[in-house]
């Protein structure tokens, strides 16, 4: 069965220059292993095609039930000079939660 991350996790977006930082946090500790297995950096890079243009790095924080994604070249050249509506990429947390994963 496919499920939206929105059902399983909450998220927050932050920014540094032209880099977006996306935290994905499992509501329930028991869902964390599934998130770790399915929400790979490659899957996130695919989901954000055309938005995150550079590398996607992932930090695993099992202790916090969280995955931290760092996406390079993601904010239209940088927060201060982007021509975009959401220069900080604050809304990208919601974009991440739109991603679907197979939950068997």
């Amino acid at each position: 069965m496919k499920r939206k991350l929105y059902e399983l996790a909450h998220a927050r977006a932050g920014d540094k220059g032209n880099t977006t930082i996306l935290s994905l946090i499992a509501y329930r500790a028991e869902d964390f292993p599934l998130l770790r297995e399915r929400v790979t950096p490659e899957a996130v890079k695919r989901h954000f095609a055309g938005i995150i243009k550079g590398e996607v790095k992932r930090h695993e924080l099992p202790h916090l039930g969280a995955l931290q994604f760092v996406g390079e070249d993601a904010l239209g050249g940088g927060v201060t000079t982007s021509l975009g509506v959401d220069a900080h990429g604050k809304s990208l947390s919601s974009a991440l939660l739109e991603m679907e994963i197979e939950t068997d």
Partner: protein
Amino acid sequence: MADTVRIGCGAGFQGDRLEPALVLAEHGKLDYLMLECLGERTVALAQLRKLHEPNHGYDSLLDRRMTGLLPLIKRNGVRVVTNMGAANPLAGAAAIVALAKTLGLKVRVAALTGDDVLDLLEPSQKVLETGESLSSVGSLFSANAYLGVEAMLPALESGADIILTGRVADPSLALAPLAHRFGWALDDQDRFARGTVVGHLLECAGQLTGGYFADPGKKDVAGMANLGFPFADVDADGNAQLSKVAGTGGTINRMTATEQLLYEVTDPFAYLTPDITADFSAVEIAETAPDTISVTGARGKPRPATLKVSVGYHAGYIGEGEISYGGENCVARAQLGGEIVAERLRGQFQELRVDILGLSSLHTRPMSGGDFSPYEVRLRVAGRSADREMAARIGEEVEALYTNGPAGGGGARKSTQEQIGIVSCLIARETVKPQVTVFET
């Protein structure tokens, strides 16, 4: 807890609400009140203001915030630690003293300077973000180094009611009073890491108590209109309990704290500040009472050898125009409007961005896939130019769609704004010379 220090955070960005700091100062039983009001662009904009008005360049809300706060902090013995000095802590401190006199209050303000390092930078220095040299970025007008606890301690030792800084690392606004009060050595790495976690959790104020969090039906937060800001009770080892004033709105729990702990952290195993390299990976957040959490377990490694510098440069002007379309076929009409404007401005802008608000402006497309058909949308066109009048042409062309564009275009708006770009570089610690100046009524 035995001997603890209580620090509240009464502002998380320059334009933040004024009331929560007043509630904290009046009812929070605080030892220290931190006010974090200085973003990267904010300090650059303040430098621009100082260029035109040498007696200004401190936070534009300083007067309003302090008018309410001064009587409360004096009555309740709360010391304020804030970066509202922005580009001109000396002028800001003088302004606070003048304000205190009109209110009939005695106040001592310690101003921290030395973060302005524009004259110390070399054009050949590398930009952290791009690797190119500073000289290739454009016309630089400000450079502020992130100072930390070491620079702030003399200001705390002066006994001042208010410690007014320019650019310091945000978490240092909490860590400095802790290091001062508990006598932590600069190389006490684990305690510095724990104090940094406290500062990092507090620094965005309402983002710890349900702001930037609430999602109706999924992550409900009660009383958002009266969102209370957080405080931390920190012990001599840096272990903390975080809560908020009873009766205020919002919530503080494991979820809000985990989101904020990781907020804007590019490496949770090595979070860099002027004070410490902090490892957040073993942090424990536990709910200990309603709206109360305990935070323990951060670990520290030596602080970075260099200081980060935030550099402001002139990035030209951004011109924008918007107009709305509704009903059947509205997306096609908005797209036609965008094509018309792009054709009329062809060749005149390096990049012209055309967005359809309501459909694709935030994420380039609906991320859930499939067909998505909004009832109304708003066309937005934006571009940058070195010339203000040229940038203004974008809004003019969008407005002209009223009578020269698709059917039913309404609510056109246009704007032109100066753009301030920010890049970063590093500077050797020993070249930066912090200084504390005390002002009194």
